[in-house]
């Protein structure tokens, strides 16, 4: 099967790249080995949140200070603004409505009530542009009885520390109570499957309307809107106060929706999305990759002009580590990682961990290297790239989207 581009990895970076290419008429196949880490995303994108322990206020400006090996530096700090706009537009085109500004981080509210800098946040989620000007004073925090993936105490305390006047209100409905009969399956995503009918939403709204008292704003855990935001809009309409959602522990409904909408958009543009399959190797000729073999289509190597590796970091199995070394498991590409196992990690769970900066080595065009040689038609994007730290720098989703778009541009202009 011959494609213009084959993308390995169907998460945020793979889909972003696939959409950008398919939109320009390319024939694209994405090989997606299982669901991606978007499932842990509460509904925000981060461009750059933190440098050396300091929160970043203007990410575009801060990006100019990053070291040369950071993926943003490879894209070129001067191109970031334009590509960031393109990313925001792409999300909107896919039906993901997010608000935010690349020159001024806002604050997203985490499931524990902690404010973290963010670039874009889903419009239904609680976000704060200025910590001195809260969007509401009195908030009613609606806590779902028997739902344990929202640490309500911590969340309420965190909101209070930010200056909100918080009233935590426990509630339930028949639908929610019957779901709790399962000892294990009362997750945000299971609630989202049950809170879909107008009746079920009305019952939630009735509770909110009768319990929220004199609050200016109602907060609800993000347990609505698995495939689109219709249920959220409906509930907002049924409530007589402004309603905002707060991210929960994963699997996250917002992330699941973003993944679904991006995949739909990609397929709508004619892309092939191979679910539950993964690249297991490929054939190289000189400095070119000729084709990729997948686990399920064993006798049909996928041929293409360009290949994009978007398989993620360790958690997504884009990178692997064993007793002896850190490596890239599909092609055994060159990686930027310490050889000595002792250096991968350090004691202190909240300390910066070296492994989170590991990734495949790339040149300035984000082309991969194998045994020191550049593979001209094999690019890497997203979390598999070295030189950034999604956890400590708050740059994971931004790197995913922006490197995806930068590589799409490189491919389209034949770089």
């Amino acid at each position, binding site marked *: *099967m011959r494609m213009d581009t084959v993308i390995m990895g169907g998460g945020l970076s793979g889909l972003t790249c696939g959409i950008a290419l398919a939109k320009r008429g390319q024939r694209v196949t994405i090989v997606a*080995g*299982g*669901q*991606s*880490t978007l*499932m*842990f995303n509460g509904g925000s994108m981060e461009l750059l949140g933190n440098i050396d322990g300091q929160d970043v206020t203007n990410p575009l400006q801060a990006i100019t200070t990053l070291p040369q090996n950071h993926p943003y530096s490879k894209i070129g700090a001067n191109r970031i603004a334009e590509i960031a706009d393109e990313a925001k537009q792409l999300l909107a085109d896919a039906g993901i409505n997010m608000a935010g500004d690349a020159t001024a981080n806002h604050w997203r509210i985490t499931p524990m009530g902690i404010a973290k800098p963010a670039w874009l946040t889903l419009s239904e989620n609680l976000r704060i542009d200025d910590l001195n000007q809260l969007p509401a004073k009195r908030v009613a925090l609606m806590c779902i009885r028997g739902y344990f993936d929202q640490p309500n105490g911590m969340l309420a305390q965190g909101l209070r520390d930010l200056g909100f006047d918080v009233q935590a209100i426990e509630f339930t409905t028949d639908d929610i109570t*019957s*779901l709790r*009969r*399962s*000892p*294990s*399956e009362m*997750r945000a*995503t*299971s609630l989202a*499957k049950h809170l879909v009918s107008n009746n079920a939403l009305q019952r939630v709204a009735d509770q909110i309307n009768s319990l929220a008292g004199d609050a200016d704003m109602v907060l609800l855990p993000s347990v609505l809107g698995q495939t689109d935001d219709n249920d959220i809009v409906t509930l907002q309409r049924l409530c007589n106060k402004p309603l905002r959602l707060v991210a929960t522990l*994963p*699997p996250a409904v917002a992330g*699941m929706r973003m993944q679904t909408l991006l995949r*739909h958009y990609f*397929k709508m543009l004619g892309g*092939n999305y*191979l*679910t*539950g*399959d*993964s690249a297991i190797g490929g054939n190289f000729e000189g400095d070119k990759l000729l084709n990729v073999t*997948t*686990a*399920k*289509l*064993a*006798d*049909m190597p996928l041929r293409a002009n360009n290949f994009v590796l978007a398989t993620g970091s360790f*958690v*997504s*199995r884009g990178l692997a580590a*064993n*007793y*002896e070394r850190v490596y890239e498991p599909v092609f055994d590409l060159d990686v930027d990682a310490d050889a000595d196992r002792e250096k991968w990690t350090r004691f202190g769970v909240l300390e910066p961990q070296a492994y989170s900066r590991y990734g495949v080595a790339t040149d300035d065009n984000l082309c991969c290297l194998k045994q020191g040689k550049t593979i001209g038609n094999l690019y890497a994007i997203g979390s598999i790239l070295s030189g950034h730290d999604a956890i400590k720098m708050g740059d994971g989703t931004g790197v995913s989207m922006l490197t995806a778009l930068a590589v799409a541009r490189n491919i389209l202009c034949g770089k």
Partner: protein
Amino acid sequence: MADSMQLCNLSENNFEQCTKCSICTTVCPVAAVTTDYPGPKQAGPDGERYRMKDPAYFDKALKLCLNCKRCEVACPSGVHIADIIQRARMKATMGHRASLRDTMLANTDLLGTVANLVAPVANAALGLKPTKLVMHSVMAIDKNRTFPAYSRQKFTTWFKRHAAKAQDAYPNHVSYFHGCYVNYNFPKLGQDLVKLMNAMGYGVHLLEKEQCCGVALIANGLYKQAMRQARVNTASIRQAVGTKGHTVLTTSSSCTFNLRDEYPAMLEIENSDIRDGISLATRFIYNLVDEEKVKLIFKQDYKRRIAYHTACHMQRMGWQLYSIELLRMIPGLDLQVLEQECCGISGTYGFKKENYERSQAIGSILFKHIENARVEAVATDCETCKWQIEMSTGLPVENPISILADALDVEATRRANSAGD
């Protein structure tokens, strides 16, 4: 030995690779409709650690698992979650006697042989209200369920009488594992395959000996019988693949998945030497076209709007691409690819009284998608999905092979493929 120390983490069904991310729970169609089922994570990797400690930790609710494998497709860690669950069921129920109902449902070929002999009577009887009520109350087969109609003539009978002789004359050859559905219920699909393959210059041959693949036997706990039949089939396939050099084609995604993947995973039947020789027909044909070994020429006046439903096991194999790409080659076909959802039937599961409601609840999402697609028919590679969708939506459901055969300009294709020989 020290050299291979900890270079990989392997365990049976990869269950140790589970990072407890819980993504599998978001795609489980059963957990979505009932709180009685603990979900794939709990039933699979979580429960397995306790069952290893003491088999008494087996939970009867595991029988609610459809074995649709959607959890495995979603798993970012490559854990064979459904296999873990099925193996646990197997270990816990090995040696138990299956009920008459389950035995009857599971023995699709036995039921078929009898039914073929008395097809008109059987069809009428299975459709009659009193019969249905008896089945509902005595046999615990749901009264709302429409039984697939039985054909008067078995596919194999037709083949021997009308097709077998001509097959040797073709330059290329394949074998065909027709399965119970084609043989007893719907010989037309087998006939369509023969028509299609012949037009491409391929002779079609039956296996020396074919028995039901046993997918229903496994699902209903008749493991020993499943193993016996699997051994017979594996031997026949080995002969076709090894001795004759044929690829063994199938037209059912469930049979294919069972023959290739469940035989080793569930029944511990070694088939690695012939696994690659078993192929769904659409995959085989697509590859021939892709490699430009054959050409397909379609009728000019063919015009239909069809939605393609990816059967769960088809998705697990990752082969929907072949069927979809082949159908897309038909110029007059407006193909809508549906978002993958489980139809809820899962072989014999939905036939059982106790599962009927759950089965329909699971399928409701898919039925809604089909309704929204505004199509005249649905295409799918699985026969049990076909029954479920036909019963629940009223739309006809066809195998992609039948659609291809229908749309094919047989003469033109024959000419195009014989020119080079």
